[in-house]
């Protein structure tokens, strides 16, 4: 269906080619996952499928790309629109109209289809993606997952044979991401669509993937093959695959179910071993909430919450969307006074602090990290952050180098990927070294190396006496770094305790390793490795 034959591509003015001698064939009805670190050329590869590379971007392409027998050399992107549908990271960026139904019909209007065909296809797509209840809704009122499903629907109305998705869940929270991925697998299985998908959340998609393309990004050739084979020595891998490699399972399990069935011997080997119980940090009280309630109109977001956060703690706040996680963070950041109760951060009420005073005590990285960034370039952003908080020039840039090395300083913040933008916002917030650090969904759009860097950074910060509170759905992040977990439901605290106990005993929040090795309370592959090999690897 998609065939790359000896394709190399060099952007105009670039020193090195982005794609080097790529040979790739994706068969009809295949779900092919493209993995690789940020900036490795995944997007370039995907955009070459419908000819945006090189027709839109310019540059030098050698070799040939054909889709459904059409070569992108002869067919510009507009003449491939009925064969290839393309969906990007941020659905809102692709919307042209205001309501769901109009957006679905817009593609077909451009293709000049007859009204009765358009009508029928809109109905079909509404049903396929479960959007019929939203048909008259304004796009701006939809949740992220719903918006992304509409964006997918808008390309599906052209009835393409191939769907190309560039990190469609990067800008979404995990629940929405799961919703989108579920829709996608349904399309593959029910319609036989060929799907090429770049994705960071491998643990969700790998069980459904027919093949995997690994883009190493260091100039070495692409690795293409069935998911099980490529994953066997891929540098980017979900915890499940890491565990499988550690235990030497063959074939490598890609779903918890497969792994669980193979894990009997491993469980027996680990019997008696217990992960070293972490000593709960007993620092000073950095922040506290005393019977805090917050109401937005009729809705109670927080209901008489009592919580204290100590220095050296990394607290994960978990719970479904709308359970009050973000409200809790905004209370600690002094965004608005509580309806009742008392918030104390570093001995004072954060609402009363002047902004400059506030940023040196509390740092909040919001879910949409882009709202913190308004400079013209990465370098300017860092410089103005130094200036605003009265720091030594270069502090923020140095912090950015720790969070994400090698981000070009002349890049416009809006031209960054979600993960890069998050790294920049993190650097801006972390530079003044606030004693209390608040993170809202900090791993959105981060690749595995990015997550690993974040984990190291958070552990360092906690070790240096910062208190970290993060609202997250990412159970693997919680497993790796959190010392304590708080579960919220309908604005109330329903669980609060050491992360291991809270997380492992919940079917919803348990990480992959815990699910495979239950009933023992193992959280991460590193812990298992330490137990098996008898040496601490983490550090």
């Amino acid at each position, binding site marked *: 269906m998609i065939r790359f*034959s000896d394709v*190399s591509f060099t952007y*105009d003015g670039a020193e090195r080619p982005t794609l*080097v001698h790529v040979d790739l064939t994706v068969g009809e009805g295949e779900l092919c996952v493209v993995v690789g670190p940020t900036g490795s050329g995944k997007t370039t590869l995907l955009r070459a499928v419908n000819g945006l590379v090189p027709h839109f971007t*310019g540059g030098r392409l050698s*070799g040939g790309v054909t889709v459904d027998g059409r070569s992108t050399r002869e067919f510009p992107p507009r003449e491939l629109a009925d064969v290839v549908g393309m969906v990007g990271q941020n659905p809102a960026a692709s919307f042209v109209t205001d309501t769901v139904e109009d957006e679905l019909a817009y593609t077909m209007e451009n293709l000049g289809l007859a009204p009765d065909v358009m009508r029928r296809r809109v109905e079909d797509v509404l049903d396929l993606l479960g959007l019929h209840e939203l048909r008259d809704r304004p796009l701006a009122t939809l949740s992220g997952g719903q918006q992304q499903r509409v964006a997918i629907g808008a390309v599906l109305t052209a009835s393409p044979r191939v769907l190309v998705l560039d990190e469609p869940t990067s800008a979404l929270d995990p629940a929405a991401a799961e919703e989108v991925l579920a829709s996608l697998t349904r399309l593959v299985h029910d319609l036989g669509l060929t799907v090429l998908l770049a994705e960071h959340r491998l643990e969700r998609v790998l069980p459904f993937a027919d093949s995997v393309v690994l883009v190493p990004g260091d100039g070495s050739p692409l690795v293409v*093959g069935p998911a099980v084979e490529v994953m066997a020595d891929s540098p980017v891998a979900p915890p499940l695959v890491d565990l499988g490699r550690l235990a030497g399972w063959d074939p490598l399990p890609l779903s918890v179910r497969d792994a669980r069935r193979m894990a009997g011997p491993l469980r027996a080997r680990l019997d008696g071993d217990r992960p070293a119980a972490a000593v709960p940090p007993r620092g000073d009280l950095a922040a506290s909430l005393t019977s805090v309630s917050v109401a937005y109109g009729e809705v109670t977001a927080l209901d008489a919450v009592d919580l204290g956060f100590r220095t050296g703690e990394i607290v994960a706040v978990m719970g479904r969307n709308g359970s009050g996680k973000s409200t809790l963070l905004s209370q600690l950041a002094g965004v608005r006074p509580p309806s009742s109760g008392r918030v104390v951060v570093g001995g004072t009420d954060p609402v009363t602090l002047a902004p400059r005073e506030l940023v040196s005590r509390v740092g909040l990285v919001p879910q949409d990290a882009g709202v913190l960034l308004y400079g013209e370039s990465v370098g300017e952003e860092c410089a103005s952050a130094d200036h605003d908080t009265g720091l030594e020039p270069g502090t923020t840039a140095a912090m950015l180098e720790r969070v994400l090395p090698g981000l070009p300083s002349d890049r416009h913040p809006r031209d960054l990927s979600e993960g890069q933008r998050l790294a920049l916002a993190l650097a801006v917030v972390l530079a003044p070294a606030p004693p209390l650090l608040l993170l809202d969904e900090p791993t959105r759009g981060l690749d595995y190396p990015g997550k690993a860097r974040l984990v190291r950074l958070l552990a360092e910060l906690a070790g240096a006496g910062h208190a970290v509170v993060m609202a997250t759905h990412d159970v693997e992040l919680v497993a790796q770094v959190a010392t304590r977990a708080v579960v919220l439901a309908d604005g109330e605290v329903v669980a609060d305790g050491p992360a291991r106990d809270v997380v492992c005993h919940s079917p919803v929040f348990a990480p992959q390793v815990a699910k495979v090795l239950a009933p023992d309370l193992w959280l991460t592959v590193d812990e298992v490795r330490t137990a098996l090999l008898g040496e601490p690897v983490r550090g």
Partner: protein
Amino acid sequence: MADRVRSARVIRLRPRASVLLVVTSMVGVVAFCWPLLLHGTSSTDLAHSGDAPWIFLAVLPLLLAVVLSELAEGSLDAKAIALLGILAACGAALRVPSPGVAGFEPVFFLLIPAGRVLGRGFGFVLGALTIVVSALITGGVGPWLPFQMFGAAWMGFGAGCLPPAKGKAELGLLAAYAAVAGILYGTLLNLWFWPFGAGTTTSFSFVPGAGFAHNLHSFVFFDLTTSLGFDIPRALTNALLVLVLGRPVLNALRRASRRAAFDVPVIHEPATDPAIDPATDPATDPATGPATGPVGAGTP
């Protein structure tokens, strides 16, 4: 960076389009200036002087259409059309609240940075298009329309012809240009309006056949007394807008232009070796090492 000072050429002026643009512009100049140029010595000239504005009115839109289509021929890709559409819509929206409000006409404020960043061909088309779109929105379609189109098109074209400058100097240059161009635009449109607007009896009326000097004198008098009080505030507000808001607008346009990669050539070539030399990099040599993976390469 090179594109900091040089404008992109989103719409290329190829030789035929250039010639057409020059010829059309000359006709445009005549259309504006005929009251001054007319030397009424023979009676036939005078007899037709009443027809002149109507002839120009019929000819100008046709000529503009020819130029626009020639400019668009082959060199307008989807990216340029998208940018043109958005900027024309923004310009038209800026024009909606403006007529009559103390010379505040911010439409040119967008046109000038756009011409500067995206080139003179783009500036010309954008100027003409903005006026048409705004006329359709405000219901301002009338005999003045082609003349306004010409005025705005020249303004956009001129902005694309300004010399290179950077930083504050660039803003100053654009602000000065905005002021001068604003006054010129007002004066030109007065020139079109003058033969009808000033009646036939006042001391600053157009007198057919009275000679260049007399009519120029009358016109300058007309211009000074009637509309300079309107044109000068407009020129100043536009210059001020450029100074205050020019930088972010220029940056936004430059970023859009850079992202759209207008000037970047698209090259297709048969499969050959790209930048890496196979002799020094055997891993990527098609002869010795296949680019596909070691296992399951090229799944069927």
